[in-house]
């Protein structure tokens, strides 16, 4: 006997939550957090059972629901750190977000209806550019000036560089094991080295951190010892002689 499970696809946690509330015919303002939380967690569990990837947003919402549920049970309000508040909001905030989200979901429905009405009205067909040929622009650039071009590009490039930097950090996945190997080889061929010698010409933060971790690991293994004469001074790496 074959066994089929139908999972509705929800793009985001707010959509899923709203679905439960509507299914239970519950007013958003009277949201019963404990009941909804269980449904929500069950849904995530089903997604996992079926090897569907549960996106981070869904997990944050699960944490939010649990947090709200917990704080309702605790007599004293707990002071949350700022970082926590950023991700995990209060019940009021959740209600507000659900209401705003539902408002725009409905507005999307309005647009859909408008489009349907519009599709029932057929325009006159025209070949792509019209039989009359392309439009003639007497002044295709409006009041744009040459300096506008330069400033615009400079801004675009500045934005681009910011994005590129973010990119590089993300992509730079250093394998700690490989790094340890590299450092060990370097140390083997030089009996005495400074930590800075292990870094490239322009090391990134990630480079420095991983190299330092590799060095610490080699110390733990007893391959090397470290010496530092003064605070913030250069770190000397000495090969351990058995």
């Amino acid at each position: 006997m074959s066994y089929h499970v139908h999972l509705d696809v929800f793009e985001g946690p707010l959509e899923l939550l709203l679905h439960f509330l509507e299914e239970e015919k519950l007013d958003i303002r009277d949201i019963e957090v404990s009941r909804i939380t269980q449904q929500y967690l069950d849904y995530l569990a089903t997604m996992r059972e079926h090897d569907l990837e549960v996106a981070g947003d869904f997990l944050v919402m699960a944490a939010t629901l649990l947090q709200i549920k917990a704080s309702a049970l605790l007599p004293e309000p707990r002071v949350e750190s700022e970082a926590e508040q950023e991700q995990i909001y209060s019940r009021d905030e959740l209600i507000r977000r659900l209401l705003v989200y539902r408002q725009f979901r409905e507005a999307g429905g309005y647009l859909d209806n408008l489009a349907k009405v519009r599709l029932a009205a057929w325009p006159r067909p025209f070949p792509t550019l019209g039989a009359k040929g392309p439009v003639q622009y007497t002044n295709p650039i409006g009041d744009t000036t040459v300096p506008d071009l330069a400033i615009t590009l400079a801004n675009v490039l500045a934005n681009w560089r910011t994005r590129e930097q973010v990119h590089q950090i993300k992509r730079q996945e250093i394998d700690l094991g490989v790094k340890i190997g590299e450092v060990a080889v370097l140390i083997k061929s030089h009996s005495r080295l400074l930590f800075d010698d292990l870094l490239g010409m322009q090391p990134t933060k990630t480079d420095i951190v991983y190299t330092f971790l590799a060095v610490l690991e080699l110390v733990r293994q007893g391959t090397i010892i470290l010496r530092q004469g003064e605070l913030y001074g250069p770190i000397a790496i000495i090969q351990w002689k058995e």
Partner: protein
Amino acid sequence: MLPKKAKAILEAIIFATAKPVPLKNLAAAIGWDETKTELLLAELGREYKDERHGFDLNFVAGGYEFTTKPAMAPYLEAFQRPEVSSGLSQAALETLAIVAYRQPVTRVEIEDIRGVKSDSAINTLLERELIEEKGRQDAPGRPILFGTTQRFLECFGLADLGDLPPLPQISAG
């Protein structure tokens, strides 16, 4: 110019132009002022409202255009629609609604309301030219501001943004 002739010219121009024609251009074509031209267009519109006509005059996206009447749609289906615009997903519709009502709006603001990453919905809307960049926000990172396009008004049959139906009230239930 006699009203009869002026009306024939307006009719010919609107008929022969691929996009909705702004009042300003129509007025210039017949050499009338905009107020008088508008009255003449209203008269033309009334004539085509009559049920013996299969199409009528509409004011859409800041201009005038002829389109077939919705009641004609069933009879037209056997023929090929000039411009097929396939439906938008729920995600794209939500995103479009946020952009339409809150413009100019950044990606982060959209994602905050929807509670989910919206790159793919935004890209779909950009590709279909329903939304476009409207400059950058003067904030760290100078995020792109999105707004709706002229094409959006055309696709949804809106005269202008003021023509959008009011947002549903945030109310209980």
